[in-house]
């Protein structure tokens, strides 16, 4: 059951769009839809991956965010240089909490900010010399790095620096991969293109580095793709896979290393968690190395069971038994979590507005807890994401693409969800409106949420947020009852 009927939702969309000028209204209308599970393709109902309207508040990021922040950043033994002015690197530093094992500054570098700190003279005379010098300094100070990636910021593209030449020269001198990534922020409409550019640069500079070299294979080798180990997600996923008998060769890219990435072409199956940010490289490996890929979902017991069985179907009976064994082992634990939290969360309504995979992947986890997702949307999805979302969401629920700040607030006012899951930019707006909110980009400083261990944390967090007593204290004491008369107030009288 959706929060509103189809007609009511339709009326709500019309009402919200009313404030826009005619042209903007027409454009925004294409990005909003009411879900219909019967639909095969989202194409006719929703437009996505289009430029945001000038003048509205969008929550999107840029191509640099997609490349440095999402794909390249979490690789722990590669140093990613933010090439350009200092702000992009500094304000994006360590924000996603991609956990890793290693000593920061010695053999792992994710939490550090390496930047060429462009000044006026670099814009005027070009920053190539500075970049070459910077790479030399990095090599002197951090000799245990396994490679360097150069993440371009906007000015580098605007002034036309030849970072490829610098990279080639440095790679020869250092004898390790130096990867130029042309992920200037102005490219594309959102961070999505950054993912694509990052995938392409991995394809061109990393993936075939160890072709033809010896690698001790087993028939059970897999790679985890598109898991960025936010709050330890990839670890919670990895133990399930290892317990069922698979060997995880690589983690892309949370807690991943360059060597793992280079060895990935030897695996039997690529397991793809975030489809949006890593489908490109999966498709490439499928074509070049004949490695099939599979999308899976490790949010909530129902989806975990489904995914484990689906993964096992690619392997022989020992893995299939392994999958059943893992499911049997964790079912009592999951049932206990559900028994504890479901009564407290039953029937609560959730609205989501996140990125990549979460608006559809977490639906199952919420349903396991008896909650219902009444609205979902993506910042930067493409139509294939919406094709997948339609099937997960209930009928007549609201789906919004690149929703504007105004629209989201109005939808929330009308639909009155019990919980909103979105990003940090939305968090305090909704806190001030008195709506429970979880920051679902980096799990609100909690996590992991993937896997069986993650589900326990997920359920606890949702309960802590929704049933927090603070939501009853949103009204100031003097607003609670209509004031009778100021003169009758004993305090005032005393004064």
């Amino acid at each position: 059951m959706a929060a509103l009927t189809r007609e009511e939702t339709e009326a709500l969309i019309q009402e919200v769009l009313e404030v826009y000028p005619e042209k903007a209204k027409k454009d925004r209308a294409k990005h909003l839809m009411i879900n219909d599970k019967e639909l095969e393709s989202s194409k006719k109902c929703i437009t996505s991956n289009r430029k945001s309207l000038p003048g509205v508040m969008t929550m999107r990021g840029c191509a640099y965010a997609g490349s440095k922040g999402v794909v390249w950043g979490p690789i722990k033994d590669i140093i990613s240089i933010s090439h350009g002015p200092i702000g992009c690197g500094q304000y994006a530093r360590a924000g996603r909490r991609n956990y890793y094992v290693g000593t920061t500054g010695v053999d792992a570098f994710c939490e550090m900010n390496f930047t060429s700190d462009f000044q006026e003279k670099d814009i005027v005379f070009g920053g190539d010399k500075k970049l070459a010098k910077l790479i030399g300094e990095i090599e002197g100070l951090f000799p245990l790095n396994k490679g360097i990636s150069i993440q371009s910021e906007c000015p580098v593209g605007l002034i036309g620096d030849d970072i490829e030449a610098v990279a080639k020269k440095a790679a020869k001198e250092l004898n390790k991969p130096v990867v130029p990534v042309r992920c200037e922020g102005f490219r594309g409409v959102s961070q999505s293109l950054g993912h694509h550019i990052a995938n392409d640069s991995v394809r061109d500079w990393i993936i075939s580095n160890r072709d033809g070299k010896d690698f001790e294979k087993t028939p059970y080798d897999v790679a985890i793709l598109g898991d960025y180990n936010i709050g330890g997600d990839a670890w919670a996923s990895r133990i399930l896979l290892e317990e069922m008998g698979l060997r995880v060769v690589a983690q892309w890219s949370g807690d991943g290393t360059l060597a793992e990435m280079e060895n990935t072409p030897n695996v039997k199956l690529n397991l793809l968690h975030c489809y949006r940010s890593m489908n490109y490289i999966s498709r490439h490996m499928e074509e070049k190395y004949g490695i099939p890929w599979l999308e899976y979902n490790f949010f909530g017991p129902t989806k975990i069971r489904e995914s484990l069985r689906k993964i096992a179907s690619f392997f022989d009976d020992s893995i299939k038994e392994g999958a059943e064994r893992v499911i049997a082992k964790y079912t009592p634990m999951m049932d206990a979590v559900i028994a504890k939290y479901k009564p407290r969360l039953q029937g609560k309504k959730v609205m989501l507005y996140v990125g990549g995979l979460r608006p559809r992947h977490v639906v199952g986890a919420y349903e396991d807890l008896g909650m219902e997702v009444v609205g979902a949307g993506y910042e930067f999805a493409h139509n294939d994401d919406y094709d997948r979302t339609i099937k997960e969401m209930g009928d007549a629920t609201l789906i919004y693409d690149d929703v504007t700040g105004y629209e989201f607030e109005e939808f929330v006012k009308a639909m009155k969800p019990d919980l909103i899951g979105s990003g940090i930019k939305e968090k305090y707006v909704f806190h001030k409106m008195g709506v429970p909110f979880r920051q679902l980009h980096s799990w609100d400083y909690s996590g992991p949420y993937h896997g069986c261990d993650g589900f326990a944390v997920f359920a606890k967090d949702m309960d802590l947020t929704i049933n927090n007593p603070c939501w009853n204290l949103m009204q100031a004491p003097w607003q609670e009852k209509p004031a009778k008369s100021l003169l009758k107030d004993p305090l005032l009288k005393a004064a």
Partner: protein
Amino acid sequence: MANIMIRKSDKGYVFYMPKRDIEDSIVSMEFDTAGKWGGEIKLGNGGAYYIEPQAAPARLPYSVRARRIDGVE
């Protein structure tokens, strides 16, 4: 002309264009024999593309240049 990738799914050929991130089923392909493969392909979304007829690729997925005849983006 654009690069496309053709894959095989359990329901037949699948069309994918990396540049624009368009993925769709291929409803019909003009030539689909070992010796002659390609020609005009029609997509589930109503688009049509043309691949120069050639020997069928040994392994799918396969990247190939294609020309847009008629199509939705």
